């Protein structure tokens, strides 16, 4: 399959990148790992006139804890993310999500920023960022701005990133004592899209009650979705079986799945309920809240 013709640019700096986007308003697309965009171009569902390749722009691949955040450069490859010792030791939710993105070959090229701003509801990292209360740093010629992950997704394939902007960094609040997070998804074997996925992030107070919680849902709505009622139902309570079950029920109601080859609405809601309970249990274990 051959994509439509396009002009290719390989800028050497972020300034040059933003300048190129400005010169081609609405006609240029940023190319990161290309693992979602190129298949869409081959199907001619995407026909950008100009591709602006980020691979030679320095300073977009990093993972570090700084100023209370885990900061991830947008061009960091997914394979790098899930193999990073810091991620494996302190952010197991990200390793879990990274490991279920496509396959290792795709992950060798696919980037964190691409997974976060492609805008397919089946992408796995958005739910993690929503659950953990993360932020996106979006850069334009006017400088960087920060958007909460829960506000970032506008519609399917539509995010807060404007035509003359680039997602440059994604941040999560730094993991602290009493915090635990996890990601689980159900997919048919063979690398199919998810039936559903759930990310959960819990912070427990010294008495073992939930002080903060966040839940994000994959593939059961027009975008990745927060499940705020389910998350709020946990606050002030111990993460015991009764409360996790209640949160699971609420999350299944907050999901807005569509019927497709992967299941009917009722089935997908049931999957969300079970995954929510299971992922909360894992997050609570990691937070140290379940004996």
């Amino acid at each position, binding site marked *: 399959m051959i994509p439509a013709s*396009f002009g290719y640019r390989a800028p050497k700096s972020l300034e040059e990148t933003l300048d190129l986007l400005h010169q081609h308003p609405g006609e240029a697309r940023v190319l990161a790992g290309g693992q979602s965009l190129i298949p869409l171009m081959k199907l001619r569902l995407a026909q950008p006139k100009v591709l602006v390749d980020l691979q030679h722009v320095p300073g977009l691949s990093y993972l570090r804890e700084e100023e209370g955040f885990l900061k991830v450069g947008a061009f960091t490859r997914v394979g790098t993310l899930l193999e990073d010792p810091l991620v494996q030791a302190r952010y197991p939710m990200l390793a879990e999500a990274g490991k279920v993105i*496509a396959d290792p070959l795709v992950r060798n090229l696919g980037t964190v920023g691409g997974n976060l701003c492609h805008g397919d509801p089946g992408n796995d990292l958005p739910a993690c960022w929503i659950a953990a209360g993360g932020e996106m740093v979006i850069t334009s010629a006017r400088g960087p701005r920060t958007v909460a992950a829960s506000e970032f997704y506008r519609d399917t394939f539509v995010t807060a990133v404007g035509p003359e902007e680039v997602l440059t960094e994604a941040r999560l609040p730094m993991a602290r004592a009493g915090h635990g997070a996890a990601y689980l998804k159900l997919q048919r074997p063979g690398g199919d899209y998810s039936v559903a996925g759930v990310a959960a992030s819990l912070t427990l107070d010294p008495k073992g009650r939930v002080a903060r919680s966040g839940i994000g849902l994959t593939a059961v709505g027009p975008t990745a979705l927060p499940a705020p009622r389910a998350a709020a139902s946990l606050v002030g309570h111990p993460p015991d079986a009764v409360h996790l079950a209640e949160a699971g029920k609420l999350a299944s109601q907050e999901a807005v799945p569509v019927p497709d080859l992967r299941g009917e609405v009722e089935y997908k809601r049931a999957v969300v309920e079970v995954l929510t309970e299971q992922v909360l249990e894992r997050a609570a274990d990691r937070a140290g809240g379940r004996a």
Partner: protein
Amino acid sequence: MTGDDGVVGGHGPTRRIQVTVNGTPRDAEVEPRTLLVYFLREQLGLTGTHIGCDTSNCGACTVQLDGRPVKSCTVFAVQADGRRIRTVEGLEQEGVLSPLQAAFAEAHGLQCGFCTPGMLMTATALVEGERAPGTDAIREALRGNLCRCTGYANIVQAVEAALRGHRPASEPKQSPASLPGR
């Protein structure tokens, strides 16, 4: 606007790239929309890299880009500018199969052979890597390579044999315990 700007419809302008393919520097003119696998097969004549699904699913087109296995149907040739590409043609050295290729032959790690170039390129990265993966890690690493003959067991055994430093070509046939049992 310069010559490499977008033209829609018909043939767009080309762009000069320099890549190193199996150790040999190559200069070429490519259209930006030319996928790496078509560049390798049609412009360089390296037809060992197969096009299976052409939809980023099957991994038959796997090559190494700067040492990491990737699906060459989902990379534009222009993205490889300045980079090292290794294809299945680069595995054999002076007529001698690589240890992994020899292990595939020995362990019957191929049936129809269509997926084999991709399997070899993914597994070569594993065999040449710093870690010593176990069976589960080998299977996980090969998740992106599909074998429609479903010959996975022997493929995994071939990779295990190569990881043990098994050299079937220079050893008596029945000696290693790794031979596919049946």
